[in-house]
């Protein structure tokens, strides 16, 4: 162990940084000097284990290649046609090729946009993993990063400006001595809690409305399409709350992530909730079969919404903060009851 550095006094008029001697020359180190291996095995082993446990990653290089080369060849073809058309004076062919070029350009732009949004989603997931890793330990303050820098990255990822009131109140609350864990607590309070509340309200409203709509809709086919449409809209809005703009592919990916999350990570939760769900559906079924169906659909939407929140929120929930299905169930149930009461009165 090297000795701790001794204290040092500095002159009060802080010297301005000198640029001339910032260039570093070559140095030789004594062989006896303590040196460390570049990577230690412990940390090197962990990612491979994680990677092995994660679902296999499929990269759609083939699809991308086909789309990209189609675009490229199409542009080349259209360009060539345009060139010969201008030479030969065949104006009709030239106009068609111009239209073709325009269409290809739009297609390319859409493709690039999709890729960009996908990348953004992936970056979001990476930031989430990093925050999890560095900010979750309460005492061990081993993070090499300045917590404030990471917080700033999170801010830009969420699409907030530095003048945003939520960010401003965080900056005021943050002190230089706050550790990563404390910073995380403050970020969660100032930036995420308002969004959590909005997201929760959204899920409550959406699930209640879905329950009612399914309960009163006359056709099963309409039920299904209503459910799908509303759920996708809900996912979009939740993602937007946490600063994610979804495109077609990224929506699909997020939807898949949420569903996978529900199927695997949430399975135990479903098992514990299932009894209660069955019971309330039975009770609702006593009112009417429709109400039972509606409740089931509403609960499914609620569960999907909560999972979507958990998947898109940049910092994982504290155990006691996590919104629970039980609270939402009551809401959905109240809505249906109101519907039933209203239908009986006249």
């Amino acid at each position, binding site marked *: *162990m090297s*000795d*701790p*550095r*001794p*204290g*040092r*006094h*500095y*002159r*009060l008029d*802080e*010297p*301005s*940084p*000198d640029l001339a*001697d*910032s260039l570093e020359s070559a140095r030789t180190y004594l062989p006896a000097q303590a040196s460390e291996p570049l990577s230690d095995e412990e940390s090197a082993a962990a990612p491979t284990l994680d990677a092995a446990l994660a679902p296999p990653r499929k990269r759609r290089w083939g699809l991308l290649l086909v789309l990209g080369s189609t675009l490229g060849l199409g542009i080349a073809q259209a360009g060539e046609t345009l060139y010969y058309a201008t030479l030969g004076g065949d104006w009709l062919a030239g106009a068609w090729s111009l239209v073709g070029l325009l269409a290809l350009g739009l297609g390319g732009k859409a493709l690039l946009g999709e890729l960009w949004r996908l990348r953004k989603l992936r970056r979001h997931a990476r930031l989430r993993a990093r925050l999890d890793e560095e900010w979750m330990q*309460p*005492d*061990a*303050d*081993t993070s090499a990063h300045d917590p404030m820098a990471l917080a700033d990255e999170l801010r830009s990822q969420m699409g907030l400006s530095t003048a945003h009131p939520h960010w401003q109140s965080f900056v005021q*609350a*943050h*002190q*230089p*001595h*706050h*550790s990563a864990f*404390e910073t995380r*607590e*403050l970020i969660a*309070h100032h930036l995420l809690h308002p969004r959590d509340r909005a997201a929760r309200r959204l899920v409550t409203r959406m699930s209640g409305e879905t329950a009612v709509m399914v309960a009163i809709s006359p056709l099963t086919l309409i039920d299904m399409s209503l459910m799908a449409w509303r759920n996708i809209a809900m996912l979009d809005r939740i993602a937007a709350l946490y600063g994610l703009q979804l495109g077609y592919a990224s929506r699909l990916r997020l939807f898949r992530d949420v569903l996978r999350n529900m199927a695997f990570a949430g399975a135990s939760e479903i098992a514990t909730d299932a009894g209660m769900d069955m019971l309330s559906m039975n009770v609702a079924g006593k009112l009417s079969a429709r109400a039972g169906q509606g409740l089931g659909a509403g609960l499914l939407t609620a569960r999907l919404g909560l999972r979507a929140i958990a998947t898109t929120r940049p910092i994982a929930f504290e155990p006691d903060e996590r919104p629970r299905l039980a609270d939402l169930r009551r809401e959905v149930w109240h809505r249906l009851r109101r519907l039933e009461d209203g239908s009986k009165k006249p």
Partner: protein
Amino acid sequence: MAMRRALTQEIQNLIDRGRDRQLRLAVTGLSRAGKTAFLTSLVNQLRHAGIDARLDLLKAAREERLLGAQRVSQPDLGIPRFPFDEAMHSLATTPPRWPEPTRGISELRLTLRYRTRRAHGLLGDTATLTLDLIDYPGEWLLDLPLLEHDFLSWSEAQLKAMGPERQRYAHDWQSAMSALTPQDVVDESRLAALAERYAASLSDAREAGFSHLQPGRFLLPGDLQGAPVLQFFPLPGVQESDRATLEALPSTSLYQTLARRFRYYQQHVVKPFYREHFRRFDRQIVLVDVLGALNAGPERFEDLSLALSTLMRSFDYGKRSLINRLFAPRIDRLAIAATKADHVTPDQHANLVALLEALLAEPIKDLRYADVPVRALSLAAIRATQAREIEDDGRRQPVLRGHGLDDQPLLIYPGDVPPTLPPRDFWQRQGFTFTGFRPPASDGASALPHIRMDAALEWLLGDKLR
């Protein structure tokens, strides 16, 4: 009349305890660990909660549910009130001074008012929590472990605990003692002179930074100055194996006289202090001046570790239930804090906490066994410095800006804090010299700056402010 009032007070206390609306917080620390500063800052922060105090890590304050606190008259009218106004006054003078060290016991009762998380219908929207705090000289705290001993084992333990450096201060007394044997008959005045030498050796050792000094009243006698109960000292050279022969000595012998006084001291000085103030606690914070111990060197560092671990055996720890909340309160949550964290740069706080945990390793193991949650943190009750950064040799160097104890402005990197105790030879080579700072200029009307007081409060009280 007075008795009836006392009885109603007692019943009210019982009801409050039963509803879990009353907490007794033990602020434990040896002398100069920063107890008075901690209490002053605590009252100040809670008074200013929701106005200008920055208590962002205290959840109730962050959610703007904490409405504030008020000092109310304490239950025990026989004990002086904690001199909060005097302490604030000394912080507001120019140049500001740290509050005077505590010379006697004082008490403080605060009521905290807060909004509950969810309205409970019957109980109303706001609730109060009563917080009892006491301040006392840290020197007296060291008497608590004395209750585990009798005179013979105490003498043995005392002399065994003296390291070579500590012996230097006791040399004068020891040479005077060398002529005496346990069976001698010694007159009063000679005993008094010897006891005075012993007391002088203790106070010299304290000046030099030692902490494990018993009996504590020798350092700060209070109203016992000059009483024979303070005229005893450990006997060198006695051993457990001679117990039978020593016990058989006549009652006029030196051994018996000292043993009698020791017992009296235990029964009439330490026990009442313990019974009245140290039995009934719900939460505890142990304040440790780690930097001061580092400044003082390895022997004093170990001495501090020993003092703290023997001390912490005097408290009851364990899980709470309704029954023992009412009749035998136990400490069910504990914070250990390295004070004066503002005297090092923020990047050193993690090391400071690691060192604190190393210092208290033994008690922490016992607490884990008792399943009592412990949290270690670094705090500064009153932040005397500001963390800055400067450019030094082409890299960013964190520094502190503040005023030294002599009121000179300073811009200083105070040095690294080691995460574990460095090897012995390090002290010969380098050692530590952490600079002292005077408190920040304050007008006495605004909230005091602090480091992690809010985190400490969250840990100690947060679960009651829901």
